[in-house]
């Protein structure tokens, strides 16, 4: 749930000339920095119906007298606006409109809101995207459309937390809300990022929890340190970034102090996530029917607001969630775009390309596409239809479909065989078991799909030959023609464990002719869940030594595997840089069953 206020990097040591220019032209600096449309800014506390005061900052671009304009909302728990030292604009270009700049330049009022319990807003946060938080946003819309500059048409856009808030906002059915653009959002956060497959994604959750706690204390230094900034870097940044911006007025600073004091009772996100073992457990005091957009799907499904949704193949489990939303909201016009990106779309994450390859399209172009979508719905009465545009790992460009998986495909099954082979499912694999002593040093790395939501770094698995040496692998024959996979691979895993708790991590990999191993996708599963459902009622006790059958849906993908390459399934029992250790103690040994009707891999083959 990427969180860093963007556009601020520690000043490199080779930029003293910036200050030279800045100090000489100090009086002109603030005017020179803003090359876009001039705006009128105001920031205030909006008192909502339950008495909570929510901080709002509005930038209204200059527009002809008598003309009204549409508005775009940013609903955030990452500070609606930064308070910065007056030195900063002298050192580097700084625009207080921040991510709203493209929108005000296109004639939108940009409305940035601190979620209750965060930023300069009062109140306490019981959890992410609660009903009361979403209700606040509805009241912000009420306020916006009463303004003399408003044309009564409102949109919402955001990445990660903010995108999820934009999606959940549609549950209000507010007539002024004409379109939303949720980007890299979490339709089902409980299973897509908190406990994929029922296993606690502890490194993400702990990192995010600590980060938002720092934000809620108005502590930019701590946030910087969590982002692995050095002590020196972070002291520098803290001297330039004072924290969240107080609202306007002489009492703004004291109001901010009072608001931050109320945040002390915010939920500890990590502890709440750790305690909610099952997908249908409450999140601390937030009930099951109020956690994530999926919990209010019926209300979302009757929304009239068209959506343009963005997700990345390598971004935690957001694609799975976005595809769920596409299906669960069949009457909502949706333009779903799936790219080969990490969280936020800032990095290309296609393992077939260089780690430093730019995203396609670029972040700026992604934003331009989102803006065009909002233009269509907020400046005209256009309603675009439903479609899914998706990229493919291993090739350039996007394909388009209206259904998922795309029509024309079929499934093919491969079976686990002796000697670590993966053979055609039509053949009969030899019966037996392969044992695997769980190696708790196994990891998918710190640049994994599970880490990217926390600060949105790149995703890069690199060559997995080393990882595979610590895992149990089954490798297929070299392909005689290119193989296109589009959809959700599935592994039926028959196994037993020496322990009553545990997890399996199933990786689908592309073995190159030269031996390099590229990550394609994976599935995570706590042994107590036979199917993809991790709800309490679907859990089953695990008896040591007893045979289990797990049906594991891997994360969806679209990828092309080239002729001469081989597919591989690699099985691990832990991912130490990303997930909790299961069991917490002990050294389990897994036995994987192979033979007729035992362990298989089913692939979605595209046309």
């Amino acid at each position, binding site marked *: 749930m990427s969180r860093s206020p963007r556009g601020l990097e*520690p*000043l*490199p*040591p080779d*930029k*003293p*000339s*910036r*200050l*030279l220019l800045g*100090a*000489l032209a*100090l009086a002109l600096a603030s005017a020179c920095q803003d090359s876009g449309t001039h705006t009128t800014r105001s920031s205030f506390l909006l008192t909502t119906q339950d008495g909570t005061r929510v901080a709002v900052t509005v930038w209204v671009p200059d527009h002809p007298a008598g003309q009204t304009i549409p508005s775009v909302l940013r609903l955030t728990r990452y500070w609606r606006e930064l308070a910065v*030292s*007056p*030195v*900063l604009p*002298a*050192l580097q270009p700084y625009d207080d409109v921040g991510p709203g700049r493209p929108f005000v330049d296109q004639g939108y009022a940009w409305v940035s809101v601190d979620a209750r319990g965060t930023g300069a807003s009062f109140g306490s946060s019981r959890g992410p995207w609660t009903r009361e938080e979403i209700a606040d946003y509805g009241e912000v819309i009420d306020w916006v459309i009463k303004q003399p500059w408003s044309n009564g048409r409102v949109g919402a856009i955001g990445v990660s937390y903010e995108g999820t808030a934009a999606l959940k906002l549609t549950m209000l059915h507010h007539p002024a809300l004409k379109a939303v653009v949720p980007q890299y959002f979490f339709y089902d956060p409980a299973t897509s990022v908190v406990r994929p497959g029922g296993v606690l994604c502890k490194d993400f959750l702990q990192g995010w929890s600590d980060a938002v706690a720092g934000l809620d204390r108005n*502590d930019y*230094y*701590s946030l910087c340190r969590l982002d692995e*900034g*050095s*002590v*020196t*870097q*972070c*002291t*520098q940044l*803290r*001297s*330039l970034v004072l924290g969240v911006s107080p609202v306007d007025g002489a009492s703004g600073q004291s109001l901010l102090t009072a608001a931050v004091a109320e945040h002390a009772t915010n939920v500890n996100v990590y502890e709440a996530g750790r305690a909610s073992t099952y997908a249908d457990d409450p999140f601390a005091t937030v009930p099951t029917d109020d956690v994530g957009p999926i919990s209010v799907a019926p209300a979302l499904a009757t929304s009239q607001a068209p959506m343009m949704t963005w997700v990345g193949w390598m971004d935690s489990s957001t694609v799975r969630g976005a595809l769920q939303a596409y299906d669960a909201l069949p009457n909502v016009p949706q333009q779903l775009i799936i790219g080969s990106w990490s969280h936020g779309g800032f990095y290309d994450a296609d393992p077939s390309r260089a780690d430093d390859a730019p995203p396609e399209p670029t972040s700026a172009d992604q934003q331009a596409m989102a803006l065009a979508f909002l233009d269509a719905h907020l400046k005209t009465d256009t309603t675009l239809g439903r479609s899914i545009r998706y990229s493919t790992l291993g090739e350039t460009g996007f394909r388009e479909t209206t259904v998922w998986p795309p029509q024309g495909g079929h499934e093919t099954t491969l079976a686990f065989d002796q000697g670590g082979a993966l053979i055609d499912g039509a053949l009969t694999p030899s019966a037996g078991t392969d044992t695997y002593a769980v190696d708790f040093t196994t990891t998918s790395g710190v640049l994994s799909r599970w880490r990217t939501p926390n600060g949105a770094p790149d995703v890069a698995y690199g060559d997995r030959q080393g990882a595979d040496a610590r895992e149990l692998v089954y490798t297929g024959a070299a392909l005689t023609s290119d193989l296109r996979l589009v959809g959700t691979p599935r592994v039926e895993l028959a196994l037993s464990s020496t322990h009553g708790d545990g997890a399996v991590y199933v990786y689908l990999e592309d073995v190159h002719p030269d031996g390099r191993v590229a990550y394609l996708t994976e599935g995570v599963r706590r042994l107590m869940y036979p199917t993809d459902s991790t709800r309490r009622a679907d859990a089953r006790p695990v008896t040591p030594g007893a045979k289990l059958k797990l049906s594991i849906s891997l994360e969806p993908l679209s990828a092309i595997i080239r002729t001469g390459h081989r597919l591989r399934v690699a099985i691990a029992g832990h991912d130490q840089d990303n997930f909790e250790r299961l069991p917490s103690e002990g050294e389990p040994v897994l036995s994987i069953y192979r033979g007729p009707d035992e362990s298989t891999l089913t692939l979605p083959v595209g046309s």
Partner: protein
Amino acid sequence: MSTTMSLALLLATHSALAQVPEVAATPDEAARLRAGVSLATGVFLAGATPELDLTARAGVQLTRRWALVGEAGLTWGLPKETGTFLAYGHLGVLAEATFADRYFIAAGPLVAFGLWSAPTGTASASAAAGLFPGVDLRLGAGFGSRDDSGRRHQFTVGLDAKLMIAGAAVSASSATAPATIGPGLGTSLILFLGYEAK
């Protein structure tokens, strides 16, 4: 005897010993405008950051001895690692006394605007940004001649010390402790070379 007078006597003694051309003694002239510029190098004590400074000054030479000088300068650091940064502009007003037409001492208030940021240990650092009030102290000697009007044209060399106070300096004392925000002191010590027409 005041410290200033003691220093003046000391400087005068040194002047008498120095084997340099004597400047013809003339009575104090009328007040006149004066100007100068200096380039300096030294160290900023928060993090011992090497620094360069360019300062211009202009003012009024009130008497042969006394002057009131305004100065404006830019100081920038030569940091060695990411996160270290030093750059500030400074404005000051100094009262200057010149002795034996050669030695001068100046002091006065200044205000600086900029950023300093540097490690202060292996896992500690300090940084401050904004306006820094402070004081400036200059001490040096000029070498050159007087023209017919009594104006001195001199190349100068000397020491400059600036003490600047940051109201909200950020300090971190270890890798794990939170940062503290509070008053901080920045000190610049530089050796300057310049030219003055005064």
